[in-house]
């Protein structure tokens, strides 16, 4: 009796889980589906298979310029935020706790919860009041700001439990602090650095809000896509572009997760407290 009820509940749960996943992914999967549909209109029934939208997308020079802008902004923002995040994570995970560690940590991550529209407006006001022109540089500044908490979290989880006696052993064996970083710390933290670079790149690549406020005349890809939506005949191009981005970011996230796990069994976690 109990078992039968169990099965009944189990069946209900399976349906719920399926509906849940369908709700999450079907809208997204419609994008690649319609990007191969031979029609200007996004509607069932499908009209026939075509790759012409992809060809049109590839031929669009404005789109290519926007993509190039996005890649440059993403690369710069991820590099800067990962370097800054590494320095901060190193300081925050020292075995001798930094004074005010909790305070710094709390505030460093609090910026995750500031709405991007607020950050966008704030930076816009700041830039214009300082007389700085809006450009890709201002977008990079905004992106570093929103990427930093991600970099910090990824790198701190990597550095936590790092056996500080490994660095001490390196100093003991004759290396200075700089070479100790390159010969011991860096190789052991590398998986975390890679994960942080990929993750922050995606955050920057995806961002519409800050780029919209700060990019001026140099559009990034999300801003470009938003602009294109005004022209109905360009919609299928946007679908093709969206599908391409979807696959690229899924691949990047998988890579980031792989790098993060690669290191999970990395540095020795057996730390013994001495007298």
């Amino acid at each position, binding site marked *: 009796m109990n078992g039968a009820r169990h099965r009944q509940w189990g069946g209900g749960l399976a349906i719920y889980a399926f509906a849940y996943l369908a709700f999450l992914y079907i809208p997204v999967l419609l994008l690649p589906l319609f990007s191969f549909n031979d029609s200007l209109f996004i509607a069932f029934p499908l009209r026939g298979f075509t790759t012409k939208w992809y060809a049109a997308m590839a031929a669009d020079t404005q789109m290519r310029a926007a993509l190039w802008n996005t890649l440059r902004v993403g690369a710069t923002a991820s590099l800067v935020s990962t370097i800054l995040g590494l320095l901060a994570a190193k300081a925050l995970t020292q075995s001798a706790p930094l004074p005010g560690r909790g305070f710094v940590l709390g505030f460093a991550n609090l910026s995750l919860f500031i709405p991007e529209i607020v950050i966008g407006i704030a930076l816009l006001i700041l830039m214009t009041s300082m007389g700085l022109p809006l450009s890709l540089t201002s977008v990079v500044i905004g992106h570093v700001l929103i990427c930093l908490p991600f970099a910090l979290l990824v790198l701190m989880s990597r550095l936590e439990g790092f*056996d500080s*006696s490994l660095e*001490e052993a390196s100093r*003991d064996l*004759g*290396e200075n602090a700089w070479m100790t970083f390159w010969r011991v710390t860096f190789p052991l933290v590398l998986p975390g650095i890679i994960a942080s670079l990929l993750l922050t790149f995606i955050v920057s690549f995806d961002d519409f809000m800050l780029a919209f406020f700060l990019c001026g005349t140099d559009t990034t890809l999300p801003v470009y896509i938003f602009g294109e939506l005004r022209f109905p005949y360009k919609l299928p191009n946007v679908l093709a572009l969206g599908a391409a981005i979807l696959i690229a970011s899924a691949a990047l996230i998988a890579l980031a997760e792989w790098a993060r796990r690669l290191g999970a069994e990395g540095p*020795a976690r057996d730390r013994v407290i001495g*007298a």
Partner: protein
Amino acid sequence: MEGSNFIRIDKVTKRFGAATAVDGVLLHIAKGEFFSLLGPSGCGKTTLLRMIGGFAFPDEGRIVLDGADVTDLPPNRRPTNMVFQSYAIFPHLNVRDNIAYGLRVERMSAAERDARVDEALAMIRLSGYGDRKAQQLSGGERQRVALARALVKRPKVLLLDEPLGALDKRLRETMQIELRQIQRDVGITFIFVTHDQEEALSMSDRVAVMEKGRVLQVADPKTLYERPVSRAVADFIGTMNFFEGRLIGISDGKATVETAALGRVEAPTPSAGTFAPGARALIAIRPEKLLLSHEQPEAPFVRGKIVAASYLGDRSQIQVNIPGADAPVSVVTQTSTVFRDGEFVYISWRSGGPLLIAE
């Protein structure tokens, strides 16, 4: 003693906030000596070792190594190398590269470096292990790699921070012998930190017993065991029976103490401490210095009742209640006589057994 000032630790004090971890420690260590810092956790032994290695810096005092003041030098500029408690084997490098790590800093040819690493691998009997990673090594093998990695630098002093603590009992005993052997072969001064008194006694030329940041006694193992200068040292090294009493006289280097439990006991007066007749005094006797019998022995003796008897094969450990003693008296015997719980026995002692200890 020739070279007895090889390492001079000159009134070194280290504080962490309000706590004093190391308190005015004064030690001279000779060249080639196997020297142990022994004490319970928190006694300051590891902090002192880290100051010698350059991982912590004294608030007061100087550390002089082979005539050079190294007090403020970082670890990479000291002629010392350390075997860490966690071994700190670099997990991203194999055994060979771990051992060669410190040699890459020095300017030498690849051929010489390889030769030195091969020599070190042979010394720790891990010649075929060069390509293994740290994760593929057992605890004992890691310990030996850490030792080789430090010794290959040919330091003037090797520092060892409880290197055997993580090993099981049998492996620890093997490694104690091996470590002592290696130390004799290379002739390098070893400073060894441990909380295990047996380990310290069995391996060291001399031992400094520490408590609460201070050095209580520095002596060779035999002196430490047979002539402890204080109750704390006597208590920490081996098992000791204590009997409180009052000093009633001193003559010819012998003190007579009136105790509640043993009556009048004669003991040699120690060189340290001042003793005045009428003062409170402490008599200490090792369990193996007490004799146990069913028949009445020659005086001096006392009578007591066995409260616990354990047969340990090569010896028996027996607890005896005697009137006037604070705690049951511990006796170790190696005779074939069988002693049982509840029996009444005689406890006797010979001259040389009882020690007078300053309180």
